[in-house]
Each structure stands twice: as structure tokens, then as C-alpha cells.
């Protein structure tokens, strides 16, 4: 076959070789076996067009269709090419960055529907990467970026907050200790409630469901810090609600107290089965202090006795954070003095 463009492209090929040689500097990103594949792909990338492609047709619309298909092929091929690199080096910044650039090109060059398909496939890849490494920082951040784009007008999108919220649940179902998933959940909640147009009752129901969820989790994983951090997040939504958006802005003071008391009782019940796990005592003390702040009442002597007991258990179970427990002890002594002085 005649390739009239081939000669003209020679300088590009020479330049490509130069690039490949320069790339030796980052050879540690690649194992040898990728090397000639990379080389071949680079040539493809720099030529950008198949040199043997026929001349543009007279009709511009046809040309556009051919051109678009060609662009789509090049972009997909590049995206496909970097997948094995990504699987091998899932923490390599520039591969992620390069993919985002390619994806952005789909928006520039392709019809919305075509571009959207590519981005949807990318969400699948993000899920796959998170199946392989549930905590990969890059993959979670990347997922948020891809979702934001899929939601945007650029891709004719609409909100994906519900399926993303569901996704965090599925990931928690794979591994309760996946703090990344709990974190993402906390970030989605305010939007989720807004978009559901949740009224006060719906918000209360939501809080109830969420507390149930984490309580169920604590029943089986009380040693797991991710769960306690998330439980603490929900408790803060109840107790520390001024000056920022929360799940339940409209709870009455007595309702808030009720919630805190109920969670304290739940943890005391957990103690019956798990009395040697420090997180329980840590949470009991923290929520008890929250309760004083809510009610404005100083602890009674019998309550103080309980706190001392919890604190002593903590000091014994978690000597590494002795400084923290000592600070708490000082605070407690001060409160006790004030309480008895009143």
C-alpha cells in the first residue's frame, strides 16, 4: 500500500525515538517488558493519525464522523494502554494525571454521548482499582473527580450522590475497616439530604439509620478505629451543631440529650462483651463530657466514680497515649473540684 505521508512523518518518528531515550530517566516506572510496547504506542501517539488514512471526503459531516471515530480510537487505545501500567504502579501520580488529560480530550473532541461512555467506563476502572486496593488514596480521589465530571453539564450529567452513597456501603460490606469508605460517606451525606429535600422527620430517620448501621458494625468490630471515628462523627452532628450544616439541625435540646444517653447506654452494653477494648472507654468519656456541655450540669459524685474507673482502664489499656489520658485526668479533677465547690 502506498503511504504518501510516511516520509513526511519521519521527523516525528525521530523525535519519538528521542523521547523514548529521554524516558530512560524514568525507566524505574516501567519494567522491561513494557518498553517496546511503550515505544510503539509513542509512535502512534505522535503520528496521531494513521498515515495511510484516505483523503478527507468532500462532505464535511462525513469527514467529521470519520475524524471523530479516529479520535475516539486513538484516545481509547491510549486509555487501554495505560491500564496495565496503572495496575503495576497504582500510586504513580503521572499515570493518573495522563488519563485525566486523555479523558478531558474526549470532551473536547467527541460528541457528548460518546465522551460520556468513555467517562462511564473510567468509573468502572476506578471501581476495579478500589477492588484491588481498597484504600488507594489516588483511586478514591480519582473516583471523586470522575464522578464530578459525570455529574457535570459538560457530559449532560445529573447528580450521582445516591449511587455513590450506595457504593460506600458496598465497600464497607467488603471491609468494615475501610476508613476511606466511611470518610467518603461522611462527605456525601450533606448533599444527599439536600438533594432528597429531606425535612426534619426524614433527617431524623436518616440519623437513626446511620446510627444503627455503625452500631451494627461496632457489635462485630469494636476494636476498629474507623468505626469509632465514624460514630464520633455522627455524635458530633448531634452535640456540636452550631455554625455549620448538620444532619439534624432541628432537634430539640432534650432530643439531643436523649440521643447521647442512648449511645452511652449502647456502649455500656458493649462493655458486657468487650471489656478490654480501649475505644469503648474513650468514647464513654468523650460522650459523657458532651453530655455535661449539653445539659450544663456538672457530674454527680456517683457519675464521677464511673469516669474515674473508665479513665483508669484507659490508662492501663493504652499506655502509649498516656499524655492524653493525663490531660483528661487534670480536666476531670478540675471539674470535680468545681462541682464540689458549687
Amino acid at each position: 500500500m502506498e503511504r504518501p505521508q510516511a516520509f513526511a512523518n519521519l521527523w516525528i518518528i525521530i523525535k519519538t525515538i528521542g523521547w523514548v531515550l529521554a524516558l530512560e530517566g524514568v525507566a524505574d516506572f516501567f519494567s522491561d517488558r513494557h518498553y517496546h510496547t511503550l515505544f510503539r504506542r509513542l509512535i502512534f501517539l505522535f503520528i496521531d493519525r494513521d498515515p495511510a488514512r484516505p483523503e478527507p471526503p468532500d462532505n464535511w459531516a462525513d469527514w467529521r464522523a470519520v475524524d471523530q471515530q479516529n479520535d475516539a480510537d486513538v484516545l481509547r487505545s491510549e486509555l487501554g494502554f495505560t491500564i496495565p501500567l496503572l495496575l503495576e504502579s497504582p500510586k504513580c501520580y503521572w499515570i493518573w494525571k495522563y488519563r485525566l488529560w486523555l479523558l478531558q480530550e474526549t470532551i473536547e473532541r467527541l460528541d457528548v454521548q460518546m465522551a460520556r461512555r468513555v467517562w462511564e467506563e473510567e468509573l468502572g476502572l476506578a471501581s476495579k482499582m478500589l477492588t484491588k486496593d481498597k484504600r488507594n488514596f489516588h483511586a478514591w480521589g480519582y473516583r471523586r473527580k470522575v464522578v464530578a465530571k459525570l455529574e457535570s453539564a459538560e457530559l449532560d450529567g445529573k447528580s450521582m450522590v445516591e449511587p455513590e452513597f450506595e457504593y460506600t456501603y458496598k465497600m464497607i460490606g467488603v471491609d468494615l475497616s475501610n476508613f476511606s469508605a466511611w470518610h467518603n460517606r461522611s462527605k456525601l451525606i450533606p448533599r444527599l439530604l439536600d438533594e432528597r429535600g429531606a425535612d426534619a422527620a426524614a433527617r431524623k430517620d436518616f440519623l437513626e439509620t446511620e446510627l444503627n448501621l455503625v452500631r451494627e458494625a461496632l457489635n462485630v468490630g469494636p476494636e476498629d478505629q474507623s468505626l469509632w471515628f465514624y460514630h464520633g462523627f455522627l455524635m458530633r452532628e448531634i452535640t456540636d451543631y452550631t455554625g455549620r450544616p448538620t444532619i439534624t439541625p432541628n432537634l430539640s435540646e432534650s432530643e439531643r440529650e436523649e440521643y447521647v444517653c442512648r449511645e452511652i447506654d449502647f456502649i455500656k452494653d458493649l462493655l458486657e462483651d468487650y471489656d478490654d477494648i480501649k475505644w469503648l472507654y474513650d468514647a464513654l468519656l468523650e460522650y459523657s463530657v458532651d453530655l455535661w456541655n449539653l445539659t450544663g450540669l456538672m457530674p454527680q459524685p456517683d457519675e464521677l466514680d464511673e469516669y474515674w474507673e473508665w479513665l483508669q482502664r484507659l490508662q492501663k489499656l493504652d499506655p502509649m497515649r498516656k499524655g492524653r489520658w493525663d490531660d483528661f485526668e487534670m480536666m476531670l479533677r478540675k471539674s470535680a473540684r468545681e462541682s464540689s465547690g458549687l
Partner: protein
Amino acid sequence: MESLSDTTWDVVICGTGLPQSLLALALSRSDKKILHVDPNEYYGSSDAAFSLQEAEEWAASRGRAGDSVFSAASVTKADGQDALRSRAYSLSLTPHLIHTRSKLLSQLVSSRAFRQVEFLAVGSFFIYKPASGSDAKPSLARIPSTREAVFMSTTIPARAKRALMKFLKFVLEYDSEPQTETWKPHADTPLVDFLESQFKLDDELRTYVLTLTLSLDGRASTRDGLAMIQRHLTSMGMFGPGFAAVYPKWGGDGEIAQVACRAGAVGGAVYMLGTGIQQLKPSDGDEELEIELTNDVTIKSRLLVRSSEAPADPIQRVSRLTAVIDAHIPSLFEVVTEGAPTPAVAVIAFPAASVRSGDGVASELPVYVAVHSSDTGECPAGQSVLYLTTPCSTTSKSVLEQCLKSFLSAVDAQTAPTVVYQLYYEQSGGPANSSLNGRVFELPNSSLDLSFNDAILEPVHQAWKQVMGGEVSEEVDEEYMKFKDREGMGDDDNDYD
């Protein structure tokens, strides 16, 4: 090529069951002269997988007592099902699921044989719950065996969940201090009692845990039961999310046996099907055996490896019912963990007393049902193969048939599935140990366990040592079952194209 009788063989292997085939695989790069024969016209011996026609022929010859392994075989076909395409089926005689933690899998990986086997995920384990007062219909309850599954379960009360979690955590490290102090005093008593006395597990949770031991008679000792459960838990997620065991496509162990024999053939072993051993002749010297084959050829070999004919002590027998049904049951093969593969096998346990035999007597022993979807390649799409197993007794056949009926009424389906084909037989287990008698090495038969038992790998290793000369250096032994890819079979640059 020299004729059979002119060669002095290093080893004659008789039978192509999994143990013998693994031996052929282990020797496949050894340059030993190997003759591998099997009296049957098919590969796999008691691990074989059959088309319907093969199964019928096999059943006809095993219908009477007398075979050392199989007996009482019979085939029942539903009316109008004569037209089933025989070759569309591949029914396994001894279907084992293989836990991912199994040594068998690591040997298949290190010997590169795994490349030629397609492994499918074994998904959920269920308990059959008979209809009771409040539930008019019998049901299947999924057994939670991970922390996450316990978390997601909606039927277990909070207190029970905590008790179960304590037990699961205990099992993970049961073989180290201080856990050993807890169970050693109870090592030989039934696990079920240990679960009650030490972990206060209620009746339902005890059934869950006991099912995961896959103990045929439901009476696993604490020692064995804990080991089984630990294997199950540590296997979970090892090869990917959501499954603890795998099953080889196209017929289970028989498929592995064929792949292993193929490796033996590639390595230069000579294969003869339909040829067994007529008799061993007393030989003049100590150096070799004279073996008369069933084709009247007499050959010389330094060693003979065959399976043991001795009955087990005590005799273990199971009843097996293999049924083809005309439905796929998607609810058994749901993906319950994000990112998990679609499973091809589900296991359902019928605890003791959950069904009654034909004459109304409650079953005394558990029954296990392995349901294989058509993804296993064992039946056409839209059908499933059910493998039912229970210890052999005077009522076991009737109990299995009753279980089959109960199972079909418990599954979610618009119209109850019907059985189009069924094969019943009884199987006895051989001794678990190998023996060397002069120049004859006897390997045990496949175990009756539902999950592949690594115990047979050690006799295979011993047989290999015998062929290699009895004493092998540590260096040589290190390389047992560790091979490089043969040329043209490895990873190449085009993996990703």
C-alpha cells in the same frame, strides 16, 4: 521406539485418579522412564467426570456389589428425557470444592499446571430451614462467615453477633497461645459442645459453624473442626473478594487429573488407557518387578505405584445422588460482595433431622448439596447439577431423595424445577496412608471429604521420592513441583493487547 517389554521402566503408574496424576505431573521433568496405565477407557479413575452415556455405562458395571470403591449405582431418567444430549454433560464422580488456602492450589501454581485449568468461585453456603409454624415454606439461610457478612446479616440478634465474632476471631489464631489453652482440653470431644460451653453460641449459630466444617456426619471433633474453620476463614478473600474456595471447570478433580496427565505425556511418559495390571510375577533379582498387563504384555519396572485395594478401617461409606434439574437458580449465585466474581457453585447443608425419609423417620445425619450452575460446564445453560452427599445407611438413599424434593420446594422459582436425570451410587473411602511393600507403592484413594483434603498430597510426595531413588537431597526436594513455564507458554509482551 522400543517396545514396552524391551524397556526397563523407572515406574509404572496404574490408575489416573488425582493422586496418580499428580505424581505424573511431579515427575514430568525428571527424565525418568514412566509408563502410565489405566484399566478404564477414560481418565480420572474415581475422580472422573462423565457424559450421560458414560455415566450409564459406568453405572451398569457398578450396579452390583463387589467394586472396592463404588457400588449400588443406578440411573433414573425422567419420562421423555431420552433425548438429552449426552455430551453436553460432565458429571463429577467425586466433586470436591478446593479451599484457596489448599496446598493443592499452591502446587498447581508452582508447577504451572494451573494455566490449563479454569477455576470458578464457590460462593455462599446456606442452611436449609424446614417449614415451621410461621413460615409456610421451607427456606435457605445464607451463612455469614466473615466479619462483614455477620455485620450485614439482618437475622442474627446483636448479642449473638458478638458471640459469633468472638468465636471467629478465636479461630483465626486458635493454634497459638493463649487460645490453645482454651480448646486443648476439649480437643477430642465434639466441636458442637465446645461451641456451647465456651462461646455460648445458640443452636442456630452452632449449626452455622458446624456446616462450615463440612463434616459429613456433623460430629467433627473440636480439634478437626477448628482446623477446618480456620482454613475456611483464612481462605476467604485470598484469591479475590467474596469466596473461600474454587472449583475447576468441566468436572472438578477429573479436570486437574487430565491436565496433570497431559503434563506427564508432554514430559515423555507413555500413556495407555484400557490397560490394567493382570498380575505381578515373582522376579529373579531384587532390582526390578515383572508386571503382566491385561493386554498380555509383560514388562519390567523398578517400581509400581497403584491405588490401595485395602478397605479403610473403620469403613467409611457415603451415598451420593447426582441430579440434573431443568432450571438455573440465580438466587443461589448472587454476588454479595462488591467486586467478587459470579460464583458457579453454592453449598446447602441440611442439618440432621431437617428431612424425613420415605418411611417417616427423621434424618439422623446431615446432607450436603453442592449446586453447580451451567457455568461449571457440567450441564447446558438453563439447567443445574446437584450433588447430594450423606453418610451411607439403610435409609440414606431415601433421605437423599427427600432432600432433593425439599430443596426444589425451597428455592425461589416461578415453577418448581423438575429433575430430568439422576444417578445414585455409594462410595467407600480407602485408607488415608500410603504403603511401600517391596517395589510396590500404594497411594490412597481420593477422600470422601466434601472439600479437597491436602492429606493425599503427602503420599504423592513420598511416591515421588521413591521414584527419584528413595533418598533425595534437600536441594532436590526443594524443587518438588516447582517448574518454569515451558517455551511458548509464559507471560509474553503481548499480555495486554
